[in-house]
């Protein structure tokens, strides 16, 4: 059932833009660029797809399929998680590559290192928790949900990009192996925040959507 829902999301609900923005994980190979933008693309993509879903009456259609009402929520969560995780996976080989082809580092902001990915999970989590729970209150107010979610997510990106310019946080900007080992707790914390955030957001969203009158 889950794979059917995901198949339906990818073939009918997803706007082509979702695929393009997901590919933007490759941006970590750009010599000087605020890589936090990658995560913001990962937030923008679900927003555009949700707008498209409203235009195509996707939520209605899904609700009429032989699934429970809350499975419509599961479908959307799966799509968002799949897009964001794919984006990170796509970026990984380029993050490795840049260390070799661009050894002088990224002057614009944080390096694509372990801490960067840890912050990425947290930024996604901030966005998803707000965006999805606010959206499923009505299942149509996509703009409001996006605005409320993207502001804190963009602030988090800004903090991440700015903080590495301060001397005491320079260890967060390193791609040296021992420094990256030091950054590992941030990655672990990020993954935990993402997992817990998504579970909590699903519970709230599903309960809210059950009460929505389509």
């Amino acid at each position, binding site marked *: 059932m889950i794979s059917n829902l995901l198949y339906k999301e990818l073939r009918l609900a997803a706007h082509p833009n979702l695929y393009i923005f997901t590919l933007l994980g490759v941006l970590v190979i750009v010599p000087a660029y605020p890589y936090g933008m990658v995560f913001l693309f990962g937030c923008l993509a679900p927003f555009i797809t949700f707008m498209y879903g409203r235009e*195509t009456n996707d939520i209605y259609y899904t609700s009429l399929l032989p699934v*429970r*009402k809350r499975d419509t929520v599961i479908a959307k969560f799966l799509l968002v998680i799949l897009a964001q995780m794919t984006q990170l996976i796509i970026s990984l080989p380029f993050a490795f590559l840049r260390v070799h082809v661009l050894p002088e580092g990224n002057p614009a902001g944080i390096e694509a290192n372990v801490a960067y990915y840890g912050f990425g999970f947290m930024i996604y989590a901030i966005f998803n928790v707000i965006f999805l729970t606010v959206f499923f209150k009505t299942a149509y107010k996509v703009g409001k949900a996006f605005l409320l979610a993207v502001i804190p997510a963009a602030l988090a990106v800004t903090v991440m990009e700015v903080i590495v310019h301060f001397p005491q946080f320079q260890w967060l900007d390193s791609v040296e192996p021992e420094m990256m080992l030091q950054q590992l707790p941030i990655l672990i914390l990020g993954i935990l925040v993402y997992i817990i955030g998504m579970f909590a957001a699903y519970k709230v969203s599903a309960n809210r959507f059950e009460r929505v009158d389509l």
Partner: protein
Amino acid sequence: MNVLAVEGLTKRYPNFVLENITFSIPKGRIMGLIGKNGAGKSTTLKAMLNLVRPDEGSIQMFGKDFKENEENCKQNIGVVLGGIDFYNHKKIAQITDSTKRFYKNWDEAAYQKYLQTFSLDPQKKVKELSTGMKVKYMIALALSHHAKFLILDEPTSGLDPVSRDDLLGLFRQLVRDGERSILFSTHITSDLEKCADDITYIKGGKLLRSAEKNAFIESFQHLKEPGETGELTLEEIMIRTERSHYDI
């Protein structure tokens, strides 16, 4: 056996209340749900299907509680919501490909047959279909997973008289073997004359009457004015029941 039993269905909105709707549909029959625009027909259908959350009431479908057996019940029904187009820019083939995976009883041979019967081109996009063809596509999907019960919200509105007659004829054919049942809402009384076995009439969110067609017509004959001899038609019944008097 009833395919559907709605009991005390109530939904309260700030400016509208659908109140205590009770009716049932026996197997193999067509029920028309009538009422003027805004009477609560769509709300009734949506509340039945849990698209709208009812405040009170129970829905038994195929003898089971709908909310408890939502997935199972939906495997055996086909729903056509009027005026809502899905995935306008997608091809029929693409929508079918995603939809059929959800149905245990999907019958590809039957689907191909219905596409031919209804002259539906799978390479056409939804937006390229006429209103009538869209309804037929949804019916083709429903029949291809052997739906036993079709629920259609205003399937005939926006159709020309020929397509309407065609669709109503199809409805009669579908229930001929006694295995399928249909519930459809309409505000066009001639649809009921041509097609319905039973009629449920909703006015201002309240159930006025639900009965077999002849008994239904019979029960409204008190609306006849002095001097009228012939039997009131459904249209006359509806107009006389709903007539507004403007004090201007």
